[in-house]
């Protein structure tokens, strides 16, 4: 019975099936919201699901100069990594993998997903993909710095009572918020969550920050040569990444929500995911044109890193 329950958690809720469903709904809703902002009707909410299915049905072409095994294998590795990342994040208090410092593991796994994209692009031997992967690297460098600052601030605040003074365990962070209130309302952590809202779209590669996949400039960049099932895997990775980042935000800053009814908790966290998606992805997508690569870099290393650093100093000084 215990085994069956664990299998249910991993495969259905809050595991694989739920992750994919939420990812598709989040991306579909984001596209719909952007369309409404631009006075368009917009695609159906499950459009990412149609796109995924259609890509599955297309012919897979491997360029002659490509490294065949890596080119075809790495999208599935990336999909596997992002699906397992979600298991580390407590969803409305439910958590599947426990660890001492899982926040650092999540940071590494999220980087690996981007690295998989870079390896896939490099293996495709296309010059467009080469430009795309160099841009992806710049984007990674841009958002990693403020992301680490945010994680340090949260870890310091949650680990106040502990011996080490810091905790990188998401379970402990959520437990701390259950007793002391959500970090979202904590005055010292307001700069941290504002910075996190800026980190999310760049981490996912959403529109104003999608320098690596600029379809009009560099032919989809990293995905230039991909078609068929590997492309479908990349598209699904993109969807699930949306869910991972929004639910990470919910766990890190809104972990204190507890109404006593599990179903209501889950619904509230789903709502938070959609709210984060609206503020951090749909609004900039609807309002901004795509940034240049150096603009992304400058924006993240001055403005966003500045906010995150202010948040870190506030927490470190004990406000």
């Amino acid at each position, binding site marked *: 019975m215990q085994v069956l329950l664990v299998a249910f958690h991993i495969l259905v809720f809050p595991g694989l099936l739920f992750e994919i469903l939420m990812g598709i709904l989040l991306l579909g809703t984001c596209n719909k919201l952007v369309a409404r902002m631009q006075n*368009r009707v917009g695609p159906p909410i499950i459009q990412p699901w*149609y796109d995924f299915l259609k890509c599955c049905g*297309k012919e897979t072409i491997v360029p002659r100069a490509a490294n065949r095994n890596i080119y075809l294998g790495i999208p599935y590795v990336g999909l596997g990594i992002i699906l397992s990342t979600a298991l580390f994040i407590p969803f409305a208090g439910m958590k599947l993998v426990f660890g001492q410092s899982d926040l650092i593991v999540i940071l590494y796994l999220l980087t690996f997903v981007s690295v998989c994209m870079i390896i896939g692009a490099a293996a495709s031997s296309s010059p467009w993909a080469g430009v795309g992967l160099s841009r992806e690297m710049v984007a990674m460098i841009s958002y990693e710095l403020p992301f680490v600052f945010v994680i340090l601030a949260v870890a310091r605040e949650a680990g106040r009572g502990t011996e080490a003074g810091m905790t990188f365990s998401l379970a402990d962070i959520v437990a701390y918020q259950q007793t002391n209130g959500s970090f979202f309302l904590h005055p010292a952590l307001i700069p941290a969550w504002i910075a996190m809202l800026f980190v999310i779209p760049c981490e996912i590669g959403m529109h104003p920050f999608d320098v690596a996949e600029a379809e009009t400039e*560099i032919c989809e960049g990293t995905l230039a040569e991909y078609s068929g099932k590997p492309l479908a895997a990349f598209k699904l990775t993109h969807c699930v990444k949306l869910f991972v980042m929004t639910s990470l935000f919910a766990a890190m800053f809104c972990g204190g929500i507890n109404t006593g009814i599990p179903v209501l908790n889950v619904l509230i966290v789903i709502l938070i995911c959609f709210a984060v998606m609206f503020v951090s992805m749909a609004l900039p997508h609807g309002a901004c044109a795509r940034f240049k690569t150096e603009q992304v870099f400058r924006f993240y290393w001055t403005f966003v890193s500045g906010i995150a650093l202010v948040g870190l100093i506030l927490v470190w000084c004990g406000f």
Partner: protein
Amino acid sequence: MFQNLIDKSMKKSPWLFHINAGSCNGCDIELVSVLTPRYDAERFGFHLTGTPRQADIVVVSGPITMQSRDRLIRTLAQVPEPKCVVSLGSCPRSGNVFKGSFAIDGPLEKYTHVDVSIGGCTPKPEAIVAGLAKAASILEEKRKAMRKGGIEAVRKMEAEAEKPDAETSGSTADAPAGEKAVKEAK
């Protein structure tokens, strides 16, 4: 069941790739206007991709010039099956005002099978949307044929469509009234 779902989603998520084979840019602007808030082809799932590898529908505009001919052939070869080719405007179909010029080597039928031909100089956005919707449903048919009989079945389907009395051949999307009249006469 999964295969049936894929067949259905073919029609719902056709991605476009646009090749300009020496067009005067009139058709290109009209194609872009189809994606703007006024006509919003994205509500049918149309999405303009930047690479032929991800395209389902290839839209060709312009009277195939000598300079663009080889690039056109190479780009068309890069599109994965099943694919649809749409000729946009009068130029790829007949050469239009450039007919007889030393610089052009059309029509488009010389190089590939054309599934839908949208006539006009330039075609109205409504006609483009109708033509693209038709191409999307042809795409679904092609996928079904490809699943049953492989790529040969698709080629056979295309050869049948090219026969003069076939319904899909030569039908222009902006002349529904004429088509209807022909059907009634039959």
